[in-house]
């Protein structure tokens, strides 16, 4: 932590003003600045679900929490919809509430946002803006926050880490203001701001900050039984429109409140934020209108063009909702031409939302003559640099000069393609015969009804072409691929796969390359099982109607990580209860690895992840791991199994059975313990030894539930191989801290829970009716 205390502070434009509160300089990314603000504010509750590029907010807070720097109750939700629910519920109790998300996370939460704003319950939501799917892109654009424009939330913009810190402080005051009482979203550019470290002044004078923030006051709370209130009644016409009018009035009030709060913020910090950020606009003849980081780039270019005598300016916003319509109209009254850059399209509307709103703002002025050009730019993280800004200025200058708009609406920075350039064509489709070689033969015993599986030797399987090609981008030693390879070695015939979001999906399909040699679908991990079930039913329907050429015999497999079975649990259980003919395979690496190793519900107690950090006050995850196989078992699907990549033959037998059941009876589910050297912090070649003790310690029981009957397929006790759980935990960096003195209780808790679950499975194994 930095210690330099600055009595004199710099304001946004580099000038010096005397600040009221003492501050120190630190070097923080936008996400870290949001986390720092959260710590300084001391929110009561944070509900969140990790998603790039906003995850670092929760991660940084987790580190601080482990070190005892704050006491925010941090709740890892099962998905963003859940996170939004947690936040809403918490906020109904009257305390201060925080969330952070991006992209698909915001969209998955979207349905809850108007509920919260219209019931007038403040909180703060940080959004590190990112492109929305399809084609999954993790980088910045504004397609996510454009969806939030109609949610009735206040939206503040932060163009650099310092602003992220400051806007979070302001958000509290604005949202809780008696005339407003609305939740506030603080949006900053993903990566450009969320991940770029800059100099940030943070407040050291805790008292001054608390005076600025005040205490949260709420007209209604769900936690005062002496004053019972009903939140969220059933309301039709003629009342609803009046409720909306109130909401609209609150937004209008915010127009007044926001600049007032910004002024007070300036008194506290010395940093000034106008609601509209005008740069060289006084006498500008042309201007660019841009949001967030791109506006800063444009300012550099504006300086240069000003030096050449060109009257250019940059207009940007610190407040997007309410939209500063009047200020924009005034600022543009004398401007001849502008280019509005939209970092997201509103397809078919001839402009993104910013353009449409700017055009709407100026048309109210009958004398306005400003020509408006719309350019869609920087989608999916495409950089916006000096050359881009200069091109926009030139287009605006040309328009100002001629008075003619050549092209009202255009995409900037696209590429048509070159017919002579080709993507490598890859490998030929796998012939059915090549993958139908009887590597596993499944037969049903007509008397007992039991399935028998006969496996060919491993060396014979080595030659079966892999359904995944080499050249994928997983880490060295990654266990997800041995898992897939082992399963695919025994699956017969044609297979269609659906991968939910996660490492295996991301590393196999970096456009324009794919490692998949068979048909592959990605859908987001909250909805993969439903998607595949739809395809399965289409397949059967087309077959039934004789509309599928050659009537292929296809096995449908969904591949998911353990995290996908958190956020996608509802969808997967829905598919299970409908008993579609498909397989679900979960490679369990005990965390959300693709996004940088946050805890999943399958992460065991005490394990360190980036959202269950280890420090003097906290020692890893505080809850036990999820027992997903038992959940599916309770859905009474025909076949459920657990396995590990460390026992290939056992996994292969089960995969073959699962295929048989998926073809003949319905849904199957398998959880497969899968090595992740990067985030378990082991050497790349430690898979065998680590997995072996995970199993021999009975932490991860190896069994199957076949038509409701449990059968342990590898029993370390019977084989005399039972080992202590500490032998497993001692082998991984993520659990080393548990070996240190003072963790005896936690270790005992892990052992006890593992033992309890193991005994239950044993009892089930021994009693077929259990």
């Amino acid at each position, binding site marked *: 932590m930095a210690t330099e205390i600055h009595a004199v502070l710099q304001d946004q434009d580099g000038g010096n003003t005397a600040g009221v509160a003492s501050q120190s300089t630190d070097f923080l990314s936008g996400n870290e600045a949001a986390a720092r603000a959260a710590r300084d504010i001391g929110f009561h509750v944070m509900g969140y679900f990790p998603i790039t590029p906003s995850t670092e907010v929760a991660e940084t807070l987790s580190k601080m929490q482990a070190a005892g720097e704050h006491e925010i109750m941090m709740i890892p939700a099962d998905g963003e919809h859940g996170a939004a629910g947690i936040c809403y519920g918490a906020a109904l109790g009257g305390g201060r509430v925080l969330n952070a998300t991006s992209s698909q996370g915001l969209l998955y939460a979207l349905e809850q946002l108007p509920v919260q704003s219209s019931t007038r319950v403040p909180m703060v939501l940080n959004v590190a803006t990112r492109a929305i799917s399809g084609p999954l892109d993790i980088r910045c654009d504004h397609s996510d926050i454009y969806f939030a424009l109609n949610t009735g939330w206040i939206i503040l913009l932060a163009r650099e880490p310092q602003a992220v810190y400051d806007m979070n402080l302001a958000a509290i005051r604005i949202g809780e203001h008696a005339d407003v009482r609305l939740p506030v979203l603080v949006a900053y550019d993903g990566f450009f701001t969320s991940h770029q470290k800059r100099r940030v002044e943070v407040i050291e004078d805790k008292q001054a900050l608390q005076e600025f923030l005040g205490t949260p006051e709420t007209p209604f709370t769900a936690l005062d039984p002496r004053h019972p209130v009903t939140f969220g009644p059933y309301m039709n016409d003629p009342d609803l429109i009046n409720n909306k009018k109130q909401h609209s009035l609150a937004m209008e009030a915010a127009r007044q409140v926001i600049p007032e709060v910004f002024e007070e913020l300036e008194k506290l910090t010395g940093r000034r934020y106008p609601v509209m950020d005008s740069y060289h606009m006084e006498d500008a003849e042309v201007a660019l209108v841009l949001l967030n980081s791109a506006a800063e780039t444009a300012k550099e270019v504006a300086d240069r063009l000003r030096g050449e005598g060109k009257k250019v300016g940059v207009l940007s916003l610190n407040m997007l909702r309410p939209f500063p319509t009047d200020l924009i109209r005034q600022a543009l009254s004398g401007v001849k031409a502008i280019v509005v850059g939209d970092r997201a399209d509103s397809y078919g509307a001839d402009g993104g939302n910013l353009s449409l709103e700017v055009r709407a703002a100026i048309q109210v002025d009958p004398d306005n003559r400003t020509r408006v050009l719309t350019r869609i730019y920087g989608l999916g993280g495409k950089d916006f640099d000096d050359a881009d800004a200069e091109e926009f200025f030139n287009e605006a200058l040309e328009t100002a000069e001629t008075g003619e708009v050549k092209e009202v609406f255009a995409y900037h920075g696209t590429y048509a393609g070159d017919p002579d350039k080709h*993507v490598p064509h890859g490998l030929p*489709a796998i012939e059915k015969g090549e993958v139908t070689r009887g590597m596993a033969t499944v037969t049903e015993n007509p008397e007992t009804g039991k399935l028998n599986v006969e496996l060919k030797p491993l060396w014979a399987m080595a030659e079966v072409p892999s359904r995944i090609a*080499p050249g994928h981008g997983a880490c060295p030693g990654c266990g997800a691929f041995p898992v897939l390879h082992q399963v695919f070695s025994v699956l017969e015939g044609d297979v269609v796969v659906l991968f939910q979001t996660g490492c295996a999906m991301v590393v196999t399909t970096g456009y324009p390359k794919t490692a998949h040699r068979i048909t592959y679908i990605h859908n987001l991990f909250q909805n993969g099982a439903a998607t595949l079930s739809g395809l399965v039913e289409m397949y059967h329907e087309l077959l039934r109607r004789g509309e599928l050429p050659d009537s292929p015999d296809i096995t449908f497999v969904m591949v998911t990580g353990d995290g996908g079975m958190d956020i996608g649990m509802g969808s997967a259980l829905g598919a299970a209860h409908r008993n579609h003919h498909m397989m679900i395979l979960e490679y369990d690496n005990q965390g959300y690895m693709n996004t940088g190793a946050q805890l999943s519900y399958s992460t065991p107690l005490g394990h360190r992840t980036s959202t269950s950090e280890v420090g003097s006050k906290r020692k890893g995850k505080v809850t036990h791991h999820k027992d997903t196989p038992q959940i599916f078992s309770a859905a009474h699907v025909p076949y459920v199994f657990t396995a590990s990549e460390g026992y290939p033959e056992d996994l292969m037998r089960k995969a073959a059975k699962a295929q048989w059941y998926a073809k003949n009876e319905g849904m199957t589910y398998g959880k497969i313990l899968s090595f992740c050297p990067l985030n378990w912090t082991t050497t790349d070649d430690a898979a065998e030894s680590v997995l072996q003790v995970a199993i021999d310690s009975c932490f991860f029981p190896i069994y199957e539930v076949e038509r409701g009957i449990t059968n342990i397929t590898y029993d370390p006790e019977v084989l005399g191989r039972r080992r202590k759980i500490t032998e497993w935990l001692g082998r991984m960096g993520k659990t080393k801290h548990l070996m240190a003195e003072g963790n005896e209780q936690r270790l005992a808790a892990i052992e006890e829970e593992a033992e309890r679950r193991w005994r239950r499975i044993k009892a089930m194994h021994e009693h077929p009716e259990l």
Partner: protein
Amino acid sequence: MNECVLPDPSGFFEIRFESIGGLGAHAAGQILARAAVLKMNLNGSHFSSYGSEKKGSPVRSYVRLGAADKPIRTSAPIDSPDVIVVFHGALLDQDITIAGMKNSGTLIFNGPADEAHEFLEKIPKGTRVVRIDATNIAIEELSRPNAVLLGTLTATVPFLDGDIVLSTLTEKFAKRNPQAAASNERAFKRGAEEYEVLEGVGKGEGDLPVIRPSPVLGYETAPIGGVIPYAGNTVSNDLSTSRTGWMPLFTAKECIHCGLCATVCPDFCLVWTHEQEGEEVPVVRLKGVDYQYCKGCMRCIETCPTEAMTRVTETPGLADRERVPLYSQGATGA
């Protein structure tokens, strides 16, 4: 606070780290920029390129420094750096690594002494070229290449205060891992001392051009909807740079062709043949490794019941000589 004066106080001094995930380029950039901003009275920004953040995939890390009162507005990546630091020798063969290298700039690369790098000829004549064997020093000192390279960087760029950078590096580890802090300190110091300035290697005229890779497909040529109709075309990827100094070596006469290694290799780079011996049933035999895809995880060695797979240091050209290609040239489009 120390006052460090930039060579050109009115402009930015820009540094680009070229690396692969796992070597610590991101951390190095962060430490350097943090030291500059908090302790050298400079303004600065730091960020890294992100794709999927897997170990072994390319990473670029950028540090932009300016005078204390110079605002940093741009968040764009650094195209024409004053210094490029290359963390992995194999990256030197790629034009993109040294793109935008200034004639007046410095190139620092990680490599052993006496290793010929024809590629360095492309570098501008005026560029100072500095070599340091960061990998070996890191191994010897139980540290990481980033500590060594930071040492070299501060020793060769005079306005960067080495003591401050080192203390910032130490701070990062001091609490959590004092042993690592001591190792890093030794590695840093050796980096600052054992580097070699290579004279007369660059032959290029003027600054190297900036490279902006354009995509292969555009909106008129890409299949709609982002669909990829080219199954398995990752076979044209070369993952050799994922290996960090070691590789598995296959000795056929020790192999019992049990197939165990095939069940654990995450990268499907083992090459099998089908042989029919006389009347006997066909047997499947392991022929070797396609090092184009091998990431050097050593899982095959761990699993092998015999001595058929052994871990060896990867010397230049070894992988090429030992490679058994999985696919024909045509299939990989390489």
